[in-house]
């Protein structure tokens, strides 16, 4: 029998292997093992990230599909997504908030089939989710949960000073003046972050103002109603808050309440949840109440979050399988939602009275939604990439910041109008 040398063996097998790979056009490891990746945010409810990792491990065990989950801070999402789209490479699945599906419409896979299945099980997706993830009739991302803003306040301080729970933004001004005197100012950020927009929106809407009209084209920020809103911010900044709010990021109002400084903030229940989990002394003193209203009703920010699949992904089928695995079974979806401790809530109609809301009496404000109108950023303009651009450019926060730091209300409004018109024209 002819002997074969080690060198000849290696040459032959390597050559044959490479020829196979070139012929198949796919690396052998990938051919055998399906693997997907998911890029999502650093959840403000960290236990939900932990639960997601747990579910991912079970997903791999049950389906044989490996999944790698990467987390990034929320403010970096837009830039990261842009670079992935531009380079047409990166993750398969991406977590999307607000109007991102509109911004990346052409880059996202149609997931109407999955949403259809979920809606059959759980009822219609909430209107805010539909407005933001269904682009021109096609679902570009699957709604997974939403975070509602409420008012979080120091119950002990309100009781001590016999303050009335604010029912309107004007009531908040009255209470805020007392809170500041007590050394516990109101903490509403006025800086280049998304929490600023989440509060400014409801205040603006409750005064009857809007950024862009229903037609999605006409800029309406320069109005008498916006002027009233700006004047309200000016007196709040002067009498109820401290200048530190001009430098805050999305976490600062939470931290201020948790550390015992702020007496009132406008935020989802995450500030309380973290205080509770970290066993901070303030946890027992924090409670929530319904968001204040104004002359034109009671409005609130709703931030739906979705999962999308990039069109450039080579793993669309396994990516869809993961979404179905995570959201498609009631028990698993419940488990996922419960891990967020009421910070992230189900986004389908039949699950609105979810058991997570009954796990703590301090979540009662989240059930008290009567008369509250929930909107995503930019309302009443229909969601679009332009509305998302206005949001991402922080025009409204800067308009308010200008006004509270000395620029006249008229000039601040004119500045914002000019900036928004440029975005709409671009």
């Amino acid at each position, binding site marked *: 029998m002819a002997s074969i040398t080690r060198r000849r063996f290696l040459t032959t097998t390597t050559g044959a292997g490479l020829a196979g790979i070139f012929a198949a056009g796919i690396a052998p490891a990938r051919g055998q093992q399906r693997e997907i990746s998911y890029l999502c945010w650093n959840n403000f409810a960290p236990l939900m990230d932990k639960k997601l990792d747990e579910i991912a491990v079970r997903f791999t065990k049950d389906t044989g599909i490996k999944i790698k989950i990467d987390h990034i801070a929320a403010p970096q999402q837009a830039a990261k997504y842009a670079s992935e789209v531009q380079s047409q490479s990166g993750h398969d699945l991406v977590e999307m908030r607000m109007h991102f599906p509109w911004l990346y419409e052409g880059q996202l896979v149609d997931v109407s089939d999955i949403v259809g299945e979920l809606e059959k099980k759980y009822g219609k997706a909430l209107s805010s989710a539909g407005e933001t993830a269904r682009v021109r009739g096609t679902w570009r991302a699957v709604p997974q949960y939403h975070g509602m803003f409420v008012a979080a306040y120091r119950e002990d301080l309100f009781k001590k000073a016999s303050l009335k729970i604010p029912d309107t933004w004007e009531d908040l001004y009255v209470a805020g003046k007392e809170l500041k005197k007590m050394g516990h100012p109101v903490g509403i950020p006025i800086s280049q972050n998304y929490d600023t927009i989440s509060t400014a929106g409801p205040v603006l809407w409750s005064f009857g103002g809007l950024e862009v009209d229903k037609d999605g084209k006409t800029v309406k920020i320069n109005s008498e109603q916006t002027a009233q809103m700006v004047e309200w911010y000016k007196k709040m900044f002067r009498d109820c808050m401290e200048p*530190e709010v001009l*430098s805050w990021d999305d976490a600062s109002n939470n931290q201020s309440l948790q550390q015992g400084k702020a007496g009132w903030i406008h935020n989802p229940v995450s500030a309380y949840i973290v205080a509770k989990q970290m066993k901070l002394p303030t946890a027992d003193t924090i409670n929530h109440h319904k968001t204040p209203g104004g002359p034109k009703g009671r409005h609130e920010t709703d931030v739906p979050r979705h999962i999308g699949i990039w069109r450039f992904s080579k793993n669309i089928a396994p990516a869809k399988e993961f979404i179905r695995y995570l959201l498609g079974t009631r028990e698993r979806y419940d488990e996922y939602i419960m891990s967020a401790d009421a910070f992230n809530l189900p986004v389908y109609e039949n699950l609105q009275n979810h058991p997570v809301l009954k796990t703590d009496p301090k979540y009662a404000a989240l059930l008290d939604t009567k008369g509250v109108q929930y909107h995503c950023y930019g309302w009443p303009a229909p969601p679009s990439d332009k509305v998302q651009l206005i949001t991402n450019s922080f025009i409204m926060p800067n308009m308010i*910041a200008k006004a509270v730091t000395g620029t006249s209300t008229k000039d601040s409004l004119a500045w914002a109008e000019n*900036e928004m018109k440029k975005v709409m024209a671009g």
Partner: protein
Amino acid sequence: MAISTVDIAVARRPSLRARISELLDREEWLGPIFVSPALVLLLLLVAYPFCMALYFSVSNAFIGRPSHLIGLRNFINLWQSDAFRQTFQNAFVFCGAAVAAKLVLGISLALLLDQQLWFKRLIRGAVLLPWVIPTALSTLGWWWMFNSLYSVVNWTGLALGIMDPPGPNWLGQKYYAMAAVIIVNIWRGLPFFAITILAGLVAIPKELYEAAEADGAGPVARFWYVTLPLLKGVLAIVVLFSTIFTFSEFNIVFVLTHGGPINSTHLFATLARQVGLETGRIGEGAAISLYLFPVLMIVVWAQLRFVRKQAY
């Protein structure tokens, strides 16, 4: 018949190794071989992105959508943006103040390090620390120090009685915020100045100082007439590099202020990121980042010319 054999000398081809060896002995081959890896890297990592940026800047490129050329419209339209005009002003204030402070402090520190100090090597090594630590991490430390809720700077100032409560709002008021980013940039860039200038100082022959001293020159005169003229070349190079680095600063502003409050600390790099990546308008973003390119080219050319004059 006598048969004679003839030795035929067969001209054997030299072995492959010998041929490679011969080739490598020839300068016209060896030079390009050594240079080519660096050239490939430069083409891939510098020339290609630069050309792409140039293309984007004259196009209406938007993330994930088809684009077409629009000439200089991006550059012209930017002047209508309040945020851009503010950024333009910020860049010159930031760069001017930071480079000037780093130059003065760098010379002072280098002179100090040139003295006979105890633990000289340890101190020289320690001075480099701000330069060595990743900027994003060290800036996080500064962010914590300037944070409105936890500011150790204000806490110290209040404890020493040199600040009125609650102390400056470092990152929330435009002048303080600009001061904060400049301070951190100086802290970060000072070692580069100090160590480079120190290298220049060490190279100055001691005889020149002895001669000046013999002629009655005091410390100030020795610095002015001996040290400074002989440091001109080094200073020009350091200022050139620092100007480029400072104009293109990103990390410090991004971590500390995100360009706020009201765009008052935005620099070209941070605004380009916000416009180009966060809002998807890559064309406009590229135009922002390339806006100062012609000016910087002239600065580089002038300074390199000055350095060459010094050298010859």
